[in-house]
């Protein structure tokens, strides 16, 4: 009888945990906005994430995986993330454009489809070719690096820098100040930008144990900080 009770208890606990897991998978928002963002976000460098990291870069610059399509989630919104062959959110890969856009998630287009982004509308409205080089979480440091490493090779006539109100806090939060100073001094002295590295494939991605590939924060809203450290 004692064994039967023990077996029953274990089975009931396992069943309870399975039901709880199922409920959280179907209704993650019921546990809180930050929880749902943390569990469903693809803004990470893990195998199911959209980022990979600039190799050997001390300032943790995330790059988006090239030619990559997935469904994203943030604050209750779902959208299709698709990147061009350089890893930016453009429907078409081009070697030369008229206009480049530098910005963060506002210009990347968090929460909307690619044909609802500023880049798409600007191309339609201006008749010029546009490359969207914006990524979620970027601040002016990344904008400068994207201009030098990804923007100038496209030989644009116009560069539009969309400064967003959280860029100052993002800069302080996401980058070691000593590294920033070293980088700035080098650029001010005329050092060239390194070219955008080639995505080497899955081998560079960090392992993804189920308990460490998520991070919870209010970062995904446009008024908070949005950064994977």
């Amino acid at each position, binding site marked *: 009888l004692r064994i039967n009770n023990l077996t029953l208890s274990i089975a009931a606990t396992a069943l309870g945990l399975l039901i709880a897991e199922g409920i959280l998978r179907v209704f*993650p928002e019921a546990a809180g906005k930050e929880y749902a963002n943390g569990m469903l976000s693809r803004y990470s460098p893990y195998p199911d994430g959209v980022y990979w990291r600039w190799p050997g870069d001390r300032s943790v610059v995330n790059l988006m995986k090239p030619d990559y399509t997935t469904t994203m989630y943030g604050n209750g*919104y779902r959208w299709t993330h698709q990147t061009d062959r350089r890893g930016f959110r453009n429907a078409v890969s081009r070697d030369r454009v008229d206009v480049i856009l530098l910005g963060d998630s506002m210009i990347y287009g968090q929460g909307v489809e690619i044909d609802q982004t500023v880049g798409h509308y600007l191309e339609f409205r201006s008749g010029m070719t546009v490359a969207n080089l914006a990524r979620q979480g970027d601040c002016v440091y990344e904008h400068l690096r994207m201009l030098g490493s990804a923007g100038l090779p496209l030989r644009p006539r116009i560069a*539009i820098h969309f400064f967003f109100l959280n860029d100052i806090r993002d800069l302080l939060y996401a980058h070691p100040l000593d590294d*920033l100073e070293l980088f700035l001094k080098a650029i001010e002295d005329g050092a060239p930008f390194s070219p955008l590295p080639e995505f080497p494939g899955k081998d560079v991605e960090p392992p993804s144990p189920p308990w460490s590939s998520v991070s919870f924060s209010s970062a995904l809203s446009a008024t*908070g900080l949005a950064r994977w450290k």
Partner: protein
Amino acid sequence: MVKRIFLLGAFRYWFGEVEMIPDYTDEELEFGWQTTERLMRQMVRIARDNDVRFILAPITDDYRQFKRLQSFAASNRIDFVDTRSVFATKWSRLPGDGHLSPRGAAALANLVADHIR
């Protein structure tokens, strides 16, 4: 297919593993501004060296931030787009999120397209 274990995530979340946004002092924020302005000056220099027209289009509804950027643009002869008309509206943002709505993105693109013509 989501490969994460939601229940484990829930324990981490409920037991306080939530990133807190640091509360920066005015001094730290001023340092951030000065560094940002140095970075922007380099963007402008590099754009000019490569015959690229550089345009600053701030997305902010903070008046002090806007004025500082406007003044920075004027003193560095940077082309500046005043986007306040877009961000003064509720419809420009996704409800409960704050990012640009499709209508907001279209309005911002129109403003910029008018400016670069």
